[in-house]
């Protein structure tokens, strides 16, 4: 302590000196006890008040009174600051009422305090998705998956990963989707519904072989099921196995005749098989006939789509197609003619898809599947 230079002074009597210090420390001890007692009383009261507000909010939320629930939860958070349950409930309620920015602010405050909070990270990810920032949301989904959860025994990380894969599927990020599905396949519960969901997601990720494996496993373990057959059929379509797909959809339709979607897919597969010139066991004549039919459909579709305006620039291609359709090739030159027809059909289809990415007419539906098979 800087002060006057008086190292010696008329000191207090030793008894007074020690007595004063003893009194001070006694007072400090008593005050500490008093303070701690008052503080604990206050904390307990605040906790009770906050819990009561929280319970009221949950009840309001159950009755779909979102804005009132938000009010109670805000009061609960203000009453017992730092309670993660109330903070997360508030953020969720704010998200539920569309107050996304406020929800994000609440969760951000929580994450600033506890960056590994899995539930808060998941809420942040949801808020970011709602704000149209899916790429930022992905990293929060990862923090949610690998973060800390109050209930470590629960399946929250798996649910978070499901939300993430759904997002990635919506974004069309097939590679990232596949990367998330591989661990999910091991982590997820082994029930039929979850496995079906994962198999469908594998399909979306461009991994039909894994989807087929799961569907077949399900059929082995759980017996015949229309939905599983339908999923398997879709996976077989993705792999270009239309005959297998037809059998699967037929099985699905047999099990659930009322399912019109399955019936439609079965019809489509049948039409694909009927149009596909690369099917095994077809005669040369049949192959040629189908190649012409395929070319005819693609030509009509392209001509209708492009219209007169673009005819000039694409004239030679359309002329070639028209000639190929109108002229019957000699038997000796059929294999070359088939190849030429298929090549023309592919080019015309590419042209058509660029010019008119709109939905296909019913007659055109088999074309992309057939061309896909041919390209394989």
């Amino acid at each position: 302590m800087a002060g006057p230079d008086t190292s010696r002074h008329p000191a207090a009597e030793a008894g007074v000196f020690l007595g004063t210090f003893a009194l001070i420390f006694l007072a400090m001890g008593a005050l500490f006890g008093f303070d701690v007692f008052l503080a604990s009383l206050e904390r307990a009261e605040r906790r009770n008040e906050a819990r009561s507000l929280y319970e009221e909010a949950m009840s309001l939320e159950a009755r779909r009174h979102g804005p009132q629930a938000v009010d109670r939860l805000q009061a609960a958070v203000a009453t017992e600051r730092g309670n993660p349950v109330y903070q997360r409930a508030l953020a969720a309620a704010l998200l539920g009422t569309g107050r996304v920015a406020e929800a994000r602010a609440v969760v951000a405050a929580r994450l600033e305090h506890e960056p590994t909070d899995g539930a808060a990270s998941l809420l942040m990810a949801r808020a970011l998705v709602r704000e149209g920032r899916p790429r930022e949301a992905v990293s929060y989904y990862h923090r949610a998956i690998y973060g800390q959860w109050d209930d470590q025994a629960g399946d929250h990380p798996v649910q978070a990963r499901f939300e993430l894969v759904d997002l990635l599927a919506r974004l069309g990020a097939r590679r990232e989707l596949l990367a998330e599905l591989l661990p999910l396949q091991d982590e997820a519960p082994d029930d039929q519904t979850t496995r079906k969901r994962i198999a469908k997601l594998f399909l979306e990720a461009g991994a039909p072989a894994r989807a087929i494996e799961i569907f077949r496993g399900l059929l082995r373990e759980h017996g015949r099921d229309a939905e599983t057959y339908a999923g398997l059929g879709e996976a077989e379509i993705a792999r270009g196995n239309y005959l297998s797909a037809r059998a699967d959809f037929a099985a699905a339709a047999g099990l659930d005749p009322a399912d019109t979607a399955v019936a439609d897919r079965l019809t489509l597969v049948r039409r694909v098989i009927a149009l596909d010139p690369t099917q095994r066991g077809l005669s040369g004549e049949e192959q040629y006939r189908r190649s012409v039919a395929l070319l005819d459909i693609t030509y009509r579709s392209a001509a209708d789509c492009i219209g007169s305006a673009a005819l000039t620039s694409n004239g030679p291609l359309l002329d070639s197609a028209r000639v190929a359709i109108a002229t019957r090739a000699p038997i000796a030159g059929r294999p070359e003619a088939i190849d030429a027809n298929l090549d023309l059909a592919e080019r015309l289809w590419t042209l058509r898809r660029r010019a008119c990415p709109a939905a296909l007419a019913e007659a055109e539906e088999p074309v992309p599947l057939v061309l896909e098979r041919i390209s394989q």
Partner: protein
Amino acid sequence: MTTVQRILRWLDELRRKESQLALVLSLVIGALVGLVVVAFILLTGRLAARLYPAGGSGWRRLLVPTLGALITGILLSRWFPDARGSGVPQTKAALFIRDGIISFRTVLGKFFCCSVTLASGIALGREGPAVQIGAGLASVIARRLGLSKEYVRSLVPVGGAAALAAAFNTPIAAVLFSLEEIMGDLHAPILGSVVLSSATSWMVLHLVLGDEPLFHVSAYHLIHPLELIAYAALGVVGGLGSVSFVKLLLGLRRWFLELPRATSWLQPVAGGLTVGVMGYFVPQVLGVGYSDVDRVLAGDLVLKVVIILAVLKIIAAAACYASGNAGGIFGPSLFIGAMLGAAVGSIAHLIAPGYTAGPGAYALVGMGTAFAGIVRAPLTSVIMIFELTRDYTIIVPLMLSNLIAYFISQRMQPQPIYEALARQDGVHLPTGEFRPRSARFRVISAMRPPPGSLPPDVAVGEALTRLRESTLDAWPVIDKGGLAGMVAKAELEAAVEAGRTEQSLATLLRERTARQGLMPTIPVPHLHPDHSLTLALERLGTLPHDVLPVVSRENVRRLLGVVTLQDILKAYGVARPARGGTKSGRP
């Protein structure tokens, strides 16, 4: 030698070495004051929650402050007269005038009276009283342990800083406040002790109450450089708001002080009733209002509400303080600033939403702005907000706004509020510029005892006769209240020439005071013993005579002596021969 013996020997050594003892006491005082202030905060908070709970009836909000003010009014006037008001001017008065002496009775009185006052919803703050409680405890302990006057004085700001650190949860701002406002000297040599006690007290606060900030503030930052215009506007509004508050408070207080002393026990009821009536309709006016500050910082209150709250709080706090309730203006300053800031912020955001932050950011800056304008501690206010937010990015707008408010406040209300309050009580606190660095060239080293006195009813002619026999060319006029003024030989001679020989000195002084437009109760010009001789020379230079009265800071009508030009020159070692008359100065 056993451990106990070693401890006793160390304690005995400590007892004899004052500098070491004072250092140890800085820690002890920090801890003790921290515990006392935490008890004070918890006690007032819990009592307030029971006396006027949220959602309680309007009648309760009307009656509780009125009754609380009545109880404290009786306590203050009967038993604890020194516990009235904020505590900061009282602490400064103790430090500079009473050798750091604050009685234990005052500490107790401040604790209990403020607990009752604040718990009953009186719109005043707890920080100022906490400062006096902390400083008082430091003073009591230091004197009890037999420390010298210098060390007792040096421990007073140490206790004050510890109290503020615990009351406001801002240890650095507490250190600065102690140096900037209480000591009036940022280079004070007690910095180390103040830091120690502040840090200790803050640790105690956190030990008991946890790591919970006083206000919960989002991270705000400057949205666009053009936003500084809005912050400058906030500086202007904050400055004008500060001046309005200070002038209203001082004006009302002057009015209350002029009422008969016998009514002093009843006067606080006027403040209690004012805040009670307001609280009946607008509950947020009651108490220190930090929960509403928290809400406005989060941007939760709408424009109309913040304007109403700012106006009502200015009136309520001014009325409560001026009527003599126990409580500080630190808290109300922050409340007023937050509301004014939120109002400016809301308007700015309405006009230019893309260029400005939300009202919460302005409320935050407004707190510092009002503090700079009202308390006039600009550096403390900047650091305080920085400590509250722990965010550096708001500092530039804060500094701009603070400086504007400080400048406006200084121009429109030259005397800082704590000095003005002390002056209303007849206590002249030394300002920083008049605080001499060297004891050698203080007035006390040159002053001489009073030469005798002239009663005010003596006739001009007789007074001139007596003055002609003196070595001094001016004499004090003393009435039953003390020093009434000074009369100079030349002035008396002019009066005699004008044929006013039989007129009394009282009439002469009254006419002069009226002519100069001065307050009749303050004999000017005068000096205090701790003034510098340079100032004495400056003041003598403005007078037609060579004598200045030296009066007490505690009571400016108590004459302690006089100082002459000759005395000053002698102190500087350049004395000239006396101009005649008797050496004693007696006629």
